[in-house]
């Protein structure tokens, strides 16, 4: 269950929280429409192969995929740092396909942070405002305001090389946010941080986005991160979009084997025959409710129940425990069924956890079965 939980921290997911004390939440947010984006590097490296994507105003949208899937190229096209070979890009109703980066109201948090080492933190934060020609006094108060908002505290007068990774990350975020762009782009901004700090900053980033109501486009290869942060996720592979949807859609109803594997699913079984709602796979015969008409059956490990011993019943499979990984809050089982194996995750409620070699019965709920295409 814990894996499917998404951070819908707002009481009503999708609804924007009311303006907070600072009155920042009423920031103009922009939608993004991409149409037929193509990009190739050199002669035969295709980075984007026809991407159509609409991102809603004020959405936390994540581009998810393995390295080389085109997610970073797509982000760079949004920033204007890369020009598409074909296709169009509309932000906030304005076509900016040809607009150079410095004329776009789009700011980026770079993976390497790309802070200016020859400038102080304050000068880094003020850079964008200065380039836009804002007077010094106004810049100063803006910087103080954002420093307060991101809780930079006394970092403001430090030099960039005196900062830790987490602090740099915050400065990079603040430097982009201070310009109040229509869209904020984040290129794997947390990938260089250790796990603890990372999950802390995930929550922080999410709160900032909810408070500002700004459109965030976030790039990551980490599906857990994507599920925690996003309103919607686009899964990319080979320069094309595989699936777009809310985290629960993508995780629980992946449209193809690639998305399923990428979201961490291993229990995929080819369907050899089907009689109405009865599916025949290597596991045996299972009854599914609204499974769809795909060629592959997906069984999510956390939907399974294990009963001790061999119990007869509908959608009951008899199995032998081949491996057990005890993880405290839950245990993961590799079960041998017929000639194949099945992964099952069982929450540790203090009940008996089957041992290796024990015979168990797997109970599969018909409503949890999903089929998908190759």
């Amino acid at each position: 269950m814990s894996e499917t939980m998404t951070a819908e921290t707002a009481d009503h997911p999708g609804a924007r929280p009311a303006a907070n004390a600072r009155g920042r939440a009423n920031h103009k947010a922009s939608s993004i429409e991409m149409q037929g984006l193509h990009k190739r590097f050199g002669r035969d490296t295709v980075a984007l192969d026809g991407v159509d994507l609409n991102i809603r105003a004020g959405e936390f949208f994540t581009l998810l995929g393995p390295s080389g899937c085109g997610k970073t190229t797509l982000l760079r096209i949004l920033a204007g740092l890369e020009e598409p070979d074909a296709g169009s890009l509309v932000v906030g109703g304005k076509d900016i396909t040809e607009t150079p980066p410095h004329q776009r109201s789009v700011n980026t948090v770079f993976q390497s942070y790309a802070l200016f080492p020859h400038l102080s933190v304050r000068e880094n934060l003020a850079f964008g405002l200065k380039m836009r020609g804002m007077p010094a006094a106004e810049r100063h108060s803006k910087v103080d305001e954002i420093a307060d908002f991101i809780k930079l505290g006394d970092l403001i007068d430090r030099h960039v090389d005196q900062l830790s990774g987490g602090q740099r990350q915050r400065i990079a975020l603040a430097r982009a946010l201070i310009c109040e762009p229509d869209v904020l782009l984040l290129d794997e901004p947390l990938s260089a941080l250790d796990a603890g700090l990372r999950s802390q900053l995930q929550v922080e980033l999410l709160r900032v986005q909810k408070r500002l109501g700004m459109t965030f486009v976030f790039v990551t290869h980490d599906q857990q991160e994507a599920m925690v942060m996003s309103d919607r996720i686009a899964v990319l592979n080979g320069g094309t979009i595989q699936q777009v949807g809310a985290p629960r859609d993508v995780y629980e109803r992946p449209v193809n084997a690639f998305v399923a594997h990428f979201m961490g699913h291993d229990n995929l079984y080819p369907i050899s025959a089907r009689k109405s709602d009865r599916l025949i796979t290597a596991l045996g015969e299972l009854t599914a409710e609204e499974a769809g008409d795909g060629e592959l059956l997906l069984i999510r490990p956390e939907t399974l129940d294990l009963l001790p011993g061999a119990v007869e019943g509908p959608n009951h499979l008899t199995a032998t425990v081949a491996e057990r990984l005890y993880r405290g809050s839950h245990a993961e089982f590799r079960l041998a069924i017929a000639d194949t194996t099945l992964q099952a995750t069982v929450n540790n409620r203090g009940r008996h956890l089957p041992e290796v070699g024990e015979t168990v019965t797997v109970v599969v709920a018909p409503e949890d079965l999903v089929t998908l295409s190759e």
Partner: protein
Amino acid sequence: MSYSGAVPTARSRAMVRETRHLLFSVAPGAVWIFIFLVLPSAYLMGVAFMTNGPYGLPQMPLSLDAFERLAGVGFLGWSPGNLYTLLRSLWQTLVSTVLVVIVAYPVAYYITTCREKWRPILLLLVVVPSWTNQVIRAFGWMNLLAPGTPLSSLAESLGLVAPNMGLYPSNFAVTLGLVYNFLPFMVLPLYAAFEKLDTAQVQAAQDLYASPVRAFWHAVFPQTLPGLLAGTVLVAIPAFGMYVIPELLGGGKGMMLGNLVANQFAGSSNWPLGAAGAILMLIATFIGLFAMRRIGKRLGGGEEVVI
């Protein structure tokens, strides 16, 4: 505490051993510096304050004659010849350093934009000419610039130089020789500065509303200043004391301070005057280095710029 210092404890013995060890390791270097730097400098200092003897050799009594001569006071009253030489040295140094920067900056940048496997080769090409003896390279320029050569004829036909004068010998030839000679000393530190630069920073600047030109001035140029400064020191100081290039390419009119000093120890024979010139050169160098250090500290935000 009733500790008696006279009792040799294990700790004090270890300290003595360590001190002795330190002395032995420092001694060879100290001796080397003393013999080859301190002694000759002290000797030069002494000579500068002595009187010129009959064969140009220094003799007693001590006097400021040499410095007066350097300032232009001679038997026939004051003449500005030496002062001109000094000013010419400063001017040549300034002009050639600026020209070296103008040529080296794009070269260094270009090399950093090349594929990684080509960069060492391109850097090698920059450095290779300096493997040939300076004198031979100066002769090379003579052959290219002498009257009657294509380059000189072209300059003459364009009216840049008087007919049959050629580009060599001239102050122009000296400047050219200096720029050519010192180019690698500017390219290498600038290359190092460019290579350290994260290209994402340039993109970040553009992302933060800087046009390409402003991105260069605000994000790139300041970060190359330490390299520029190091290169300036490496070029300006040896250029100021340069002997070979003005000697071979400048003719009588292109003399620099280095030639003045050399002449006093050889041809004209006035050792005290030569020594005084050398000291002047040393002082100018120190002033230059000091100024660079100050600038470097300000640029680096307190961070030491290694020169």
